[in-house]
């Protein structure tokens, strides 16, 4: 398990850094500092979105899979299958984008691929590569869930006996959160399967394009995409519950009734939050619109009252060893919360009317992902290499510096969004020309973020290579 985790870390960080470079190129192009052909810009955009989620999701999975060995006989071959399918999927996506010219964005919103200047084979290959990623992750999620259920019956893994007031045997919070998250992952992967099947049926039905309902396809696309990235974050949160008490020399957390209620509720509510992607489709049933806002607002309440408070209560007044790992986790939770504020403001219909598809959207999800999810991942990576004997106590300045420049990078998105600069533009017309200047600053901040992550990567990859080749253990 150690070796495959090390392999994930090496592969994941290299692909992540490559995707950061693509991101910086886009911001430089938007600022007018370099000249990027529009077609090339949107190819990079597509690759950046797919590549980031395509590698950060399994990297988060690799972390929880590693910690799962503390409780159950953690699955190795589904993990290896996940690795193989992820690498093949990402290579195929690279191929479809740069050779096939695919530039539909991550969401290939029906019926865009038909009309975009993309080779037909590239669209088909693209669907295949998404199917490969989805299959690999499905096998992996099901494998992990299966190994949990071998040891804990479902009602115990979900902590239902705690909801009923029974305290023993206690379900570790890590198992509880991982179980509900994996069920959520499997649910949204099923939505992904439905989406791909419909696409394939449409392609077979080539003589009669326009056979599918664009509103249904849009709902499925966001049920799949939004839920997946949401669940990705909860994988990181599971690691927080697992590791945080040890950082402060406290006993492991125990699942209390409200923890069980919260973590049974969150993945369910999150399934309905995706409706906020369709606020500006006035033909969507009104009830869905209102459920979207209510679900988006309910989801963070347990996150704040349960997870945030628990972590702050653990740190407050304790003697914490502030090494790189705990710093990444602590700052990750901070930015998870800040990103949440940006998210629920946008998930309010009245605000969404002016913020929808402006740069406010990448602002909030970069806060979640770059400074939330990636920080959780870097946190467990630092912990992993520390277990391998590489101490990082003198390096807690690194997460802090990344936070400063990262927040600068993200703030440029927020300001742009508030001033109506639209997202997914390769060039900002005069009416929204403020976007150009802010893109320039965004690129500068992002470059510093890249350099700092490169330092981190060199540090942990060299340690991971040692673990990978250490056949004795």
């Amino acid at each position, binding site marked *: 398990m150690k070796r495959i985790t090390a392999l994930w870390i090496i592969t994941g960080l290299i692909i992540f850094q490559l995707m950061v470079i693509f991101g910086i190129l886009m911001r430089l192009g938007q600022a007018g500092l370099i000249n990027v052909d*529009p077609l090339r810009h*949107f190819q990079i955009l597509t690759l950046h979105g797919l590549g980031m989620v395509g590698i950060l999701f399994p990297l988060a999975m690799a972390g929880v899979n590693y910690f799962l060995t503390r409780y159950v006989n953690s699955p190795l071959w589904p993990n290896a299958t996940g690795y193989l399918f992820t690498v093949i999927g990402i290579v195929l996506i690279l191929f479809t984008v740069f050779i096939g010219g695919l*530039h539909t*964005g991550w969401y290939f919103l029906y019926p*865009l691929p038909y009309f*975009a*200047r993309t080779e037909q084979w590239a669209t088909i290959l693209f669907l295949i590569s998404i199917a490969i990623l989805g299959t690999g992750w499905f096998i992996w999620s099901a494998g992990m869930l299966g190994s949990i259920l071998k040891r804990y019956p479902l009602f115990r893994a979900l902590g239902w006996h705690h909801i009923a007031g029974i305290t023993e045997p206690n379900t570790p919070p890590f198992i509880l959160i991982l179980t509900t998250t994996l069920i959520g992952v499997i649910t949204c992967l099923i939505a992904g399967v439905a989406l791909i099947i419909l696409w394939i049926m449409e392609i077979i039905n080539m003589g009669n394009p*326009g056979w599918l*309902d*664009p*509103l249904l396809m*849009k709902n499925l696309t966001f049920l799949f995409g939004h839920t997946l990235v949401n669940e990705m974050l909860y994988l990181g949160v599971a690691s927080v519950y697992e590791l945080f008490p040890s950082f402060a020399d406290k006993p492991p957390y125990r699942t209390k009734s*409200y923890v069980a209620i919260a973590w049974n509720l969150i993945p369910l509510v999150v399934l309905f939050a995706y409706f906020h992607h369709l606020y*500006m*489709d*006035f*033909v969507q049933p*009104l009830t869905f*619109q*209102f459920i979207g806002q*209510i679900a988006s*607002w309910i989801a963070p309440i347990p996150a*704040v*009252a*349960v997870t945030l*408070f628990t972590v*702050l*209560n653990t*740190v*407050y*007044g*304790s*003697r*914490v060893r502030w090494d790189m790992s705990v710093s990444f986790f*602590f700052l990750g939770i*901070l930015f998870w919360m*800040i990103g949440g*504020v940006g998210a629920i*403001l946008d998930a309010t*219909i*009245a*605000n969404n*009317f*002016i*913020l*929808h*598809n*402006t740069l*406010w959207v990448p602002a909030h999800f970069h806060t979640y992902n770059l400074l939330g999810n990636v920080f959780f991942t870097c946190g467990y990576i630092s912990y992993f290499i520390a277990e391998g004997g590489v101490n990082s106590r003198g390096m807690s300045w690194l997460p802090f510096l990344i936070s400063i420049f990262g927040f600068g990078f993200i703030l440029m998105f*927020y300001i742009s969004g508030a*001033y*109506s600069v*639209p997202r997914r*533009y390769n060039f*900002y*017309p005069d*009416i*929204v*020309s*403020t976007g150009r200047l802010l893109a320039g600053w965004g690129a500068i901040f992002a470059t510093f973020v890249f350099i700092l992550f490169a330092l981190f990567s060199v540090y942990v990859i060299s340690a991971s290579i040692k673990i990978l080749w250490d056949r004795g253990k």
Partner: protein
Amino acid sequence: MIQKKNIIIIMHKPMPGSIVLWIFLIVGIIIILVFWSVYRKSRDGSRHISNPEKIRLVIFLGIALISAIYTIFTLPKNPYFSYAEKLPDKVILVEARMFNWNLSGPVDDIRPGDVVEFRVTSSDVNHGFGLYNPEGIIIAQVQAMPGYENRLRVRFEKPGNYTILCMEYCGAAHSYMSGKISVR
């Protein structure tokens, strides 16, 4: 009826993005200060919160209350019912097509104060009809989806040149897909 009047006032002037930005920054700074103060008390191991579960309950109820109040106030302020109680002064049909906006109806005859209904659709892929005021701030938007017609009502307050930009990625020339509406 009173409620509908409120909707008119609010949607006529949507919450400016700059105010949303300030709310975000103020709440964000409060969160950073909370984390900072907790971090400062994390080195000597000398303190602990005496009754954490009580504080947790207060936080839970506080946030739930704020969320409930916010939802009750904001849910009615949505664009779906804007100016629903009256007939629009003008109706303009909008057909989005890569990479143009085809407007038909009294496009050159919009006066300040007119409530205009845009009936928005697309003849190819998904687009987004984003209406920018002369200062470059978005005042209203709706999606243009093939096979569907979204109706958006907007009151034009000030004379001037309003710009239409595409708000849903629609292909390589997405950033260049713009249109104009003159109000005079």
